[in-house]
């Protein structure tokens, strides 16, 4: 009797244990923790429709993720699907670590063009983008109307932007907070698009020449840092990153700042009575706006155990509806943007920025190049150099990196 129960128990536990081993029919999916609940629902839905395929979620966190993914890809023992940031894909493709997905993507014309370009290497698509986002201008509606400005008539040009920021700077409130501290990515995300709008760039298209001391780039950097020089941005600008600006915005000390739509929910939670509005980032007169296109893509590692089922699951994830359901910010497919959850008027300016989104340059020295640009901006903000001298120095530093 006892023995029988034991045998029965063993059989049951074997059954329970079996699915935890990667067997044929399993698709192992690395997905970040912030969308775990939605990922689970999609995996369950897919399993219902395809009972012979099990989706196994493995939850990742953003801290140290690039290194983890790199290790998994190089060891050849990785999962079947990984979610990665768009900017990482080129490196994987160049080193032949992920599979081309041209046979997997459906209705490619429905995708945001810039992000498809970012995931394409040597004519082949190496990742399928699903989440994209751009920064725009978030502002305090009360401060804006108090300054005598009309929310229906947003600032279009850089001149309008400065004028509006000046009007909102009153009574201890700063009209327009820029970032000048924290991790350098905060400031690159906000300042580099201004260079693009003005017709400049940080390095040339072939990745060989630094171009940040050209007149268009210097003018854009001067425009950015002038918000601080003209005291439209807080005294603490050199210490402030995106989160610090959000805190100052919540505290009512800052009337507007550049950020992504991910700040809307935390603001609503911390200050439910604060009325918030959003504008597309203004551009120089006669030119168009721009933003850095950030977000996430799916890749299938070169050595994936079960690429066939993984591709099938990717096609399920990337239907217009499922992509719109899954993304934390915006979907990479234009048709998904029609879903009700993206119709909030506050989201419209952020969605409006997407067609103007551009990828960051693809160069192995990108981190150090961004750091050089950020240091240049800090030298201007701290009064050590004027914009031309600061960008001349940054240009030399970047050129040395490109030559090395």
């Amino acid at each position, binding site marked *: 009797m006892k023995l029988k129960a034991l045998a029965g128990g063993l059989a049951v536990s074997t059954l329970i244990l079996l699915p935890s081993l990667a067997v044929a029919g399993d698709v192992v999916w690395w997905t970040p923790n912030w969308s775990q609940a939605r990922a689970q629902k999609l995996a369950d839905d897919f399993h219902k429709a395809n009972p012979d395929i099990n989706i196994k979620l493995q939850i990742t966190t953003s801290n140290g993720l690039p290194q983890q993914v790199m290790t998994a890809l190089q060891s050849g023992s990785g999962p079947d699907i990984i979610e990665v940031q768009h900017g990482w894909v080129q490196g994987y493709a160049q080193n032949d670590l992920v599979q081309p997905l041209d046979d997997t993507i459906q209705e490619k014309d429905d995708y945001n063009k810039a992000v498809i370009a970012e995931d394409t290497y040597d004519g082949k698509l190496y990742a399928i983008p699903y989440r994209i986002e751009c920064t725009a201008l978030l502002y305090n509606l009360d401060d804006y109307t108090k300054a005598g400005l009309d929310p229906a008539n947003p600032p279009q040009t850089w001149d309008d932007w400065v004028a509006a920021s000046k009007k909102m700077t009153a009574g201890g409130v700063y009209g327009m907070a820029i970032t*000048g*501290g924290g991790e350098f990515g905060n400031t690159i995300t906000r300042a580099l698009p201004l260079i693009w709008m003005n017709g400049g760039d940080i390095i040339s298209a072939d990745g060989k020449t630094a171009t940040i001391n050209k007149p268009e780039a210097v003018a854009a950097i001067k425009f950015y840092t002038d918000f601080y020089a003209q005291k439209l941005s*807080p*005294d*603490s600008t*050199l*210490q402030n990153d995106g989160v610090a600006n959000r805190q*100052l915005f919540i505290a009512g*000390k800052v009337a507007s700042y550049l950020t992504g739509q991910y700040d809307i929910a935390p603001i609503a939670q911390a200050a439910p009575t604060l009325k918030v509005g959003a504008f597309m980032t203004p551009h120089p007169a006669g030119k168009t706006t721009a933003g850095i296109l950030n977000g996430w893509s799916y890749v299938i590692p070169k050595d994936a155990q079960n690429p066939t089922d993984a591709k099938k699951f990717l096609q399920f994830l990337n239907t217009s509806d499922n992509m719109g359901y899954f993304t934390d910010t915006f979907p990479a497919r234009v048709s998904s943007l029609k879903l009700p959850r993206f119709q909030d008027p506050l989201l419209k300016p952020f969605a409006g920025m997407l067609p103007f989104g551009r990828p960051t340059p693809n160069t192995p*020295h990108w*981190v*150090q190049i961004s*750091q050089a640009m950020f*240091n*240049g*901006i*800090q*030298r201007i*903000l*701290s*009064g*050590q150099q004027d914009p031309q001298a600061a960008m001349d*120095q940054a240009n030399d*530093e970047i050129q*040395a990196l490109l030559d*090395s």
Partner: protein
Amino acid sequence: MNRSSTGLMFILPAIAVLLMLIAYPIVYTVYLSLIDAHGALTGKNYANVLKPYVTRQAFGNLLYYVGGSIVFQVLFGTLAAILLNQKFWGRSAVRSITLIPWVVPGIVAATTWAWMFHTEFGIINYMLTGAHIIPGPVGWLTNKDTVMPVLIAINVWKLFPFVAIMVLAGLQAIPADLYEAAKVDGANFWEEVWYITLPLVRPVLVAVTLLLLIWGLNAITLIYAITQGGPANLSLITPIQIYQLAFTSFQFNEAAALSVLFFIVAAIVVAVYVKVIPSNTAVAR
């Protein structure tokens, strides 16, 4: 097996552990510094780290930071020790309280000071502007003239209790009859300090300064937690530069090259100190 080879057998495990934990990393770092990303031998890493201005700037900042810190740490530490060596009511309580900065974990102290010196939310600006000592908030950690002095001040605050405790131990070892003899000869307090106390605690001061120097050259916690070397590298020191090269930019070979150079400089400084200073104290004694 003769005596000495038996002895060698006994120390073999310890030697093996030392080789694994100290020699191997050093040799491997040197090797890393001499190859490129594809494993080919190259001298480029050294050229790439020596060329940029930032390397000189970081090293200059490091000398300023360590030098400035040590002078005030030893000065305040010694003064505090002399004070704590006097007999007064509540002396043991004051001695314990003095130790607090040294006992607080570095990262906790750094974060707290960073907030206290914050331009917008910091209590220091709040008190100074509230008392009308300064007209408007000062960017203590972002102004090019204040950031290094502030960091040095925090570092002095953090470590002077260590000097104080070490010197205090040295003071207590001085025989009381020396002071009594000096009193008989009509020496005042400062003469006692100058002719008896300082010469006799000099070996302690030398040892402590050497320790502070070695710690200072390695110190990364305070500056990294407060400014990360910013703004615009104004407070960047070489150890942070090495860390950033390796773990933010993933340029491990260049980071290794800079580590090797820094190791040589640090080794020279320490060797000079160990060799020169103690012989002087021997003469002084």
